[in-house]
């Protein structure tokens, strides 16, 4: 009875494969982060909770995206953006939590959240409300608007408030953690505009015939690396910092 609704996974469908593995990997990462909370000192518990929430929210959305893809064979655009709209701001929260000890104010948190929501909402409008057949002006305008949000976050992580706070903290662990997360923003997040350019009229669509379906594979892998990787960086900082605190006390 339990198996009646199981959908067969085609052997030659890597996208379906990665939806399944992505869902399980995110779920496993969430369990890991939640359990490991008890091993870190109090000031790091919130950071691990947020890491667990990021992968947990993604796991649930991947569960639904998996089913949507298996049932329709289509790209679950709306579900992806719903997931990103929740998890990306939470990733920005991690920057705030990492630099809170160095004096980060709540204003920094709101600025990063606003920038990430700006980036995602603009991207969604550009992708989901693209007129049938594709409209260059619509896609360009919302693509540029979305990119501005991304560049603000990138600047903040590399030169702005986050980078300056990490530098002023004098804590090598925090500096290293912020630096690695900044690299995630620079390289890891850069993969997402690829899907945007696969829209009708987009460069990847015109030059290579790529459609949004083609990049589900990249999105699934990128999401897993970015979200789980992000959490693991925070985890490693928390564990090491806790160990240092125990040694010094």
């Amino acid at each position, binding site marked *: 009875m339990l198996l009646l609704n199981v959908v067969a996974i085609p052997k030659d469908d890597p996208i379906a494969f990665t939806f399944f593995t992505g869902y399980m990997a995110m779920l496993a990462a969430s369990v890991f982060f939640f359990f490991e909370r008890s091993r870190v000192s109090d000031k790091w518990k919130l950071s691990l909770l947020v890491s667990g929430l990021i992968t947990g929210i993604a796991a649930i959305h991947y569960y639904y995206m998996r089913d949507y893809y298996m049932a329709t064979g289509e790209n679950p655009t709306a579900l992806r953006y719903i997931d990103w709209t929740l998890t990306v701001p939470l990733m920005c929260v991690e920057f705030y939590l990492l630099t809170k000890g160095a004096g980060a104010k709540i204003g920094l948190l709101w600025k990063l959240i606003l920038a990430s929501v700006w980036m995602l909402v603009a991207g969604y409008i550009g992708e989901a409300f693209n007129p049938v057949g*594709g409209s*260059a002006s619509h*896609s*360009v305008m919302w*693509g*540029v608007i*979305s*990119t501005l949000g*991304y*560049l603000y976050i*990138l*600047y903040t992580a*590399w*030169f702005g408030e986050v980078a300056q706070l990490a530098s002023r903290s004098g804590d090598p662990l925090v500096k290293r953690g912020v*630096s690695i997360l900044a*690299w995630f923003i*620079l*390289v890891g997040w850069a993969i997402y*505009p690829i899907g945007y*350019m696969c*829209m009708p*009229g*987009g*460069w*990847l669509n*015109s030059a290579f015939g790529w459609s949004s379906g083609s990049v589900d594979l990249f999105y699934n892998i990128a999401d897993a690396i970015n979200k789980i990787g992000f959490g693991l960086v925070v985890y490693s900082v928390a564990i090491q910092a806790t160990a240092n605190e125990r040694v010094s006390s």
Partner: protein
Amino acid sequence: MTKLTFSFIAVIYILVSITSFSGGIDIAVQLVIASAAIALVGIPHGAMDNVLYLADHAVSPFWFYTSYLAVIAAYCTLWMFLPIVSFVLFLGVSAYHFGESQLSDYYKEAGFVRGAMFFLWGVNVLSALMYYNHEDIMMAFGAFEDASVLTAVFDEYFWQYALMVSATALIFILGVSKTKISHSSLMMELYVLVLIHLSFYVLPFVLAFTAYFVVLHSARVLMEEYDFLQRHIRQFDVKKFIKTLLPLTLVSLVGGSLGVLLVESSVLEVSYLMLAVVLLSLITLPHAIVMSGFYLRDEG
């Protein structure tokens, strides 16, 4: 990452956002943007050669200007008799110069490895431009009788080969050389190189090269020149810097405009493209020589 590198990343992301859907930007618009950017940043970055050289060498200004102009005159003569050789020289000097400005922070002392890394980096960038935009470049040069002579240099397979060999050689020398670059710097340089390749592949070649040349090369050199002069000249500020680079910038712009006028009035029987290539090469060679000395200066 430096703020300049960030600016380059920002410019490329915005340009890619714009051009990925717009179906390309009209060549006339591209040329206007390129001309303005080069006039405002590209030309001025070379307009400090006299100040930089004379600040660090005990020679008379007369000797400097005579030598500078002699190099230009000799190169001009070479162009008249051996245009293909001159063009290859232009590409070779540019490659070295681009690599030098990008990697000089890591390689301070003269040596084979230093020279090889600079040249190979520049060759990698130029071959990316040539290979990814081969058709467009052939079309542009082929449209003019005098410039079409230079299409012999644009063999697609040569630039593909140059691209692969330069990348391989760069990795090899990086691995075996004694000079060690920090992990984060290496990652950043790799990221920038990938971004340059991406921009040359995705963007129209005029726009892509302008973005690289103006933001990553010229602006960086201008900042280095400013830092140097600020350390050597008392009360040196941005205003003084602009005043210092203004004279030779204006000379270059006036010279260029004169060239255009001569072509317009058929006194000079060359195409505008050939005029641009020759004029740019004539100021690149002495500039690259001066900058080579600048990067090897003893700051002790």
